[in-house]
């Protein structure tokens, strides 16, 4: 039911602060670093100086979160899925001292999913997320148009709406409310984000770390009307989007026909955790004889082949865990709506198994388990 879909994620406790959201988050992180409560903060920040770009960084110097520091914790931009980065950070074991990470809901889900796959470790990671209004596509981060967009973005956020220019994937995202975050910054549909802000301290850890922020603790039922509305809008958009990509073999080939085989979608996909992808491995390095065989059979074939094989195969490998973060579409040099395809397939598959990736770290990944009595219709 929609109600639950958005509010179940919140603890009843929340902290209301008379300071803009941006300032609050910067303030919080700076104090955490200064006090040494956290050893480092993973957040977005400026790179390469003024004319430069935006990337995630592990910040140690509190000044980064000062008024004109490099950090940009709430920037609606996603140069990488932080879930993958957190996995990289904790792959060889938990961090010794707390590290805070400011992530978007889909990044958080990706990390949870990776932890399930033993590709990361939650210990000592303080997860800070927010109700998400989506992010802008990568190319807007290059030409500077992102900067210009920000005022509109926040304006519409306050109204609980999404800017039309955020990535379609985001506009079609149903899981924009973080689950399992220690601290959730309420953004979507919150009034006066530049002067006030609400922090939901969902866990004891959250409370412990954000405890000494100045603000008033409020409890009890909160109004999630804006969220519900956004959910409905996004659902609608999602159906549109999915309907947009045709079905059937021909359409599939049309969609992926211009794939240049860079496998960038795989590389940036947080769920694709393999060190060496099956489709880059020896298994797909074929002797000339193979191609000659195919040639004899069909009179012609694409080289390098395996375009469709790669896409379908990758779906079979990760769609069940796809968190719909949209990185794959963003990165595709051939402008293929990869994410739309994968979310569509993923959503359907996840529905079949009644599974929501990244919702709960204790939730088993469907293919790692089974029921004695299920899907009896499939096998006959």
């Amino acid at each position: 039911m929609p109600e639950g879909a958005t509010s179940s994620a919140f603890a009843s406790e929340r902290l209301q602060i008379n300071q803009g959201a941006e300032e609050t988050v910067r303030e919080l992180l700076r104090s955490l670093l200064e006090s040494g409560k956290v050893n480092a903060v993973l957040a977005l920040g400026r790179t390469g100086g003024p004319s430069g770009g935006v990337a995630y960084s592990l910040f140690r110097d509190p000044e980064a979160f000062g008024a004109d520091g490099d950090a940009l914790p709430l920037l609606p931009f996603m140069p990488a899925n932080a879930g993958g980065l957190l996995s990289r950070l904790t792959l060889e074991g938990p961090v010794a001292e707390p590290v805070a990470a400011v992530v978007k809901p889909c990044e958080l889900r990706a990390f949870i999913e990776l932890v399930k796959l033993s590709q990361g470790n939650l210990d000592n990671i303080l997860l800070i997320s927010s109700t998400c209004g989506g992010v802008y596509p990568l190319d807007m981060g290059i030409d500077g148009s992102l900067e210009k967009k920000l005022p509109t973005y926040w304006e519409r956020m306050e109204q609980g709406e999404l800017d039309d220019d955020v990535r379609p994937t985001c506009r079609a995202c149903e899981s924009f409310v973080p689950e399992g975050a220690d601290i959730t910054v309420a953004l979507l549909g919150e009034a006066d984000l530049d002067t006030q802000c609400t922090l939901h301290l969902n866990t004891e850890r959250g409370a412990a770390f954000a405890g000494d922020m100045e603000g008033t603790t409020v409890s009890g039922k909160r109004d999630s009307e804006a969220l519900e509305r956004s959910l409905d809008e996004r659902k609608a958009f999602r159906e549109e989007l999915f309907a947009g990509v045709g079905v059937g073999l021909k359409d599939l080939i049309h969609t992926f026909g211009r794939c240049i085989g860079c496998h960038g979608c795989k590389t940036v996909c947080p769920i694709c955790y393999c060190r060496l992808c099956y489709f880059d491995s020896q298994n797909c390095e074929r002797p000339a004889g193979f191609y000659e065989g195919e040639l004899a059979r069909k009179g012609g074939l694409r080289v390098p082949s395996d375009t469709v094989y790669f896409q379908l195969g990758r779906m079979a490998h990760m769609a069940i865990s796809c968190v719909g973060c949209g990185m794959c579409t963003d990165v595709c040099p051939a402008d293929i709506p990869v994410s739309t395809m994968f979310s569509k397939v993923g959503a359907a598959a996840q529905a079949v198994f009644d599974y929501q990736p990244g919702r709960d770290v204790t939730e088993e990944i469907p293919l790692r388990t089974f029921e004695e009595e299920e899907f009896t219709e499939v096998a006959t």
Partner: protein
Amino acid sequence: MPNESTVLIYGTNLGGYRAAYALGKRGHKFILLNRGSYVDEEKYQALAQLPLDFCWICGHMPQRAFKASGAMQDCYNAQLLAVSGEAGHFHVKFKKRDKPVNNFACTECDQCIEVCPVEVGEGKAIRVVPEAGWENCYVIDFEHCTRCGACEEVCPTGALKVERPEEVVEADVGAILLADAFEEPSDDDLRDFGLGQGPSVIRNSEVARRSLLTNFVRDSVRLPSGRMPQTFAVIVTPHFNRPGVEYENYNLSVSAIYRAIRLKEILPEAEVTVFLHDYRGTGKGHHQWYMKALDAGVRVERAETLSVVPDETVEEAAIHYTSLEGESRTQSVELAILVTGQSPPSQMEELSRLTGVQADENGFCRLRPFSCCETDVDGVFAVGELTGPKGNPETVWDGCAALTEMQRYLGEKNVAPGAAPSLRDVAGEPTRVGVFICSCFGQFDDRMDLPGLVERARALPGVSHAEIIEGCCTGPTIQATAERIKESGVNRVVLATCTPLQKKGKYDKAVMTAGLSPLLCEYLRFREDVIQVHTDPEGMLMKSLALIRGAVEKVKRGRHVSPLVDTFDGRALVVGGGLAGLTAATEIAANGFPVVLVERENELGGQTKYLDEEQREYVKGLISSVNASDNIACYTQAKLGQVEGYAGNYHAVIETPTTPVSVDAGVIFVATGAQESLPQGFLYGEDPAVMTQAELAERMKGGETADHVAMIQCVGSRTPEVPYCSRLCCNQALEHAILLREQGAEVTVFYRDIASYGKTNYYRLAKEAGVSFIRFPGDDVETGYPEVRRNGAGLEVVSEGESHPADWVVLSTGIVPDAENNEALSELLGYPLDYEGFFSSDISNYPYEEAIKKLTKPFELGSNGIFPVGLAHSPRSFEETILTAKDAVGRALVVIGKNKMPPPNKMFVAAVHESLCMGCGVCVDVCPYGARVIDEIERVVKIRPFLCDSCGSCVAICPNNASYLQDFKGEQSVAALDALLV
């Protein structure tokens, strides 16, 4: 009663070292008698002889391993007293006095030096001689030592005793090897060159000595006043010295040229003149370097006579010389560098008294004809400079040839490698790193804050234990360290001690005794990298910590791997049935190993037509012993079809007139010989009176002679096409010339350089016999050669416009490689040819063959079990051909027939992540030893661990870390690097 297996080696020349090395590796004990008071007091002989300014020959001796295994007993201040018995059963008596400091107990802590009250010049009465590659030697200057004993008291391990008793030792040995050291001519020998008479005359060896710590730099030639000379003379003294005073080792000319080139490198503006009589560059690459010198602007002045008169005070010397044309000239230089030869051995008399060996007319040790090291006395051998002037290769080859020749007098191997300790596989255990920091018996305590360092080391991630140890270099401390490692329960070890270069064996022993593979450990040179080279405590602490951090990160990622073993096939394949091939075959067979001999022609013997009677007889003898031997299978009219495999595991197919035969072998000898180059022009082939030296020999045998004989040297040698000296032609021509003179003929030799070499100075003899010599402008090949014309009935030789009538014109033609055959074989064996077209020396001979370190290279498998011998390797005389063959056999004997051979580097070999390997083969191309090969089916690289010397070139060239060394994995090195920089 079986023969003794031990060998007594008297003296420490390069040949002796090489023999000792080979004996130890083969498994024979040897006693090394050193007249000097420490390992190579006489070391600088190498510098005198080496053209290079760096030397680490002695470092190639795994002396610690040899001592540990009991193979080596080295005695100092030693003197041979008596020799009795006979070959195989000598009883020797010698006296020795141990060095005050026993290197095996010595930790090189330098406390003795610190407490020594006696100042001598810069240092103290006890000082360290670090240049010695074996170990740092502590020597006491007994002249000044007061015997106060302070050093003895302070020595933490009791390694030092000021007074050592002189001991008389008796031993039973199977053979005796005389290897007495090279001796430089004395200052008096060189008085004609003004040595010691002024500041501006210096020996080349002194220059090298000055360059020891810096390599050759300007300061090596700086004048006492501090001025930098701008005019130099490099003088090859034996060319001008009085007869019999000094002898010229074969590489002297090129040493002079090399020095001149280096001078031009560091002082491009300087004027450098090389004074010599002839340029005698007879070895590989020598001619190349001669041309290089000319390009570099070095002036080469050929003189008939020469003397140097230095000014006593002013830094200037006058070179008085007469040109070849007889006009006397003088040139004044600021520094004259004397490239000196060697004196006849001073010990000969004593040695012949003791052993019965005989000196030859020049005072060198006489050898049996056609033998390399056999003296007149059975079982007594002599190598290196003791037997005459040599080039470095010949000196070194002597060593292994001796091993070959002495086999028949030696009993069974008497050194058995100790059992390896069992190591535990730590896979699955949580990583626990232990850091053990050596205090060098408390020595380091006051140099820096060790406890503080330990504290910080313990705090490093992954480190579960850290402590200070007393040491890990003496028996007890090694044991103690092993115990501590065990008790601390760690499974990775960082040992912060001192020089792994010298003590790695000890550290390995410690950790292996503790049950850990050295792959799980890292040894830090705490002393060399921190204690002895720094003063600032804080900085030292930081640096030590960085080093430890790096080591910890490295060992954390270390994995245990158990080393493999391979068998080295005991069979040998010899290609070519000439002198070299026959020698190799018989010698290998004589040691009980099966041999397959392949000869292209239908009978053995090779090119015998140029040989004299004795030589023919000798070859016949070899052939009959080949035929007689049950160990040798001989295929004539046969050739090598295909070859696969690698050292110790070759599989070859031999094409015979009947059916192909397949052969397995561990080693392959390439003895395919070379050809006499046939002269072009000079009316050769048009006029019967124009002939080659070989043809001359035939005619002289037939009793013919002529009144006027002209000889032209360097026909088809030292030309752009044949860019080398064929080594043999000059001596051959001179011998003939002398004979002809005896028969009353007028002989004129037209030459560029008379490159005669050897004990017998044929050059001088020929001159004395009245042979006349006319030099033609040699460096300009195009116009240089004299022209041969018909002149009425006879002939005339026209050189530089002058006509010289002649009845016979004899052309001294060179030796050229059998290009076609060599290239095919090189392809087949994957063995390189050198730029001259001969089979390369077993390793790269840059800058040229005398880069002696190359020749003493201890990695037996460096040549992948392939040994080019005889003329296939380079132009060689009859005797030298035998020498190359016996040297090769000696080197083969070190490895051949080993049943359980571990990789030379045990577990430290290269490996491949096959899932990442793309089979691109770049690592195969850069591997210096053919230790890698592409598996054509799997398209990945496979390793031949037994050829791998773990240099890591494969790691560096591999773009994605598919190649790695067991102790140098990508993840190890990156993490370690980062840790250094935190």
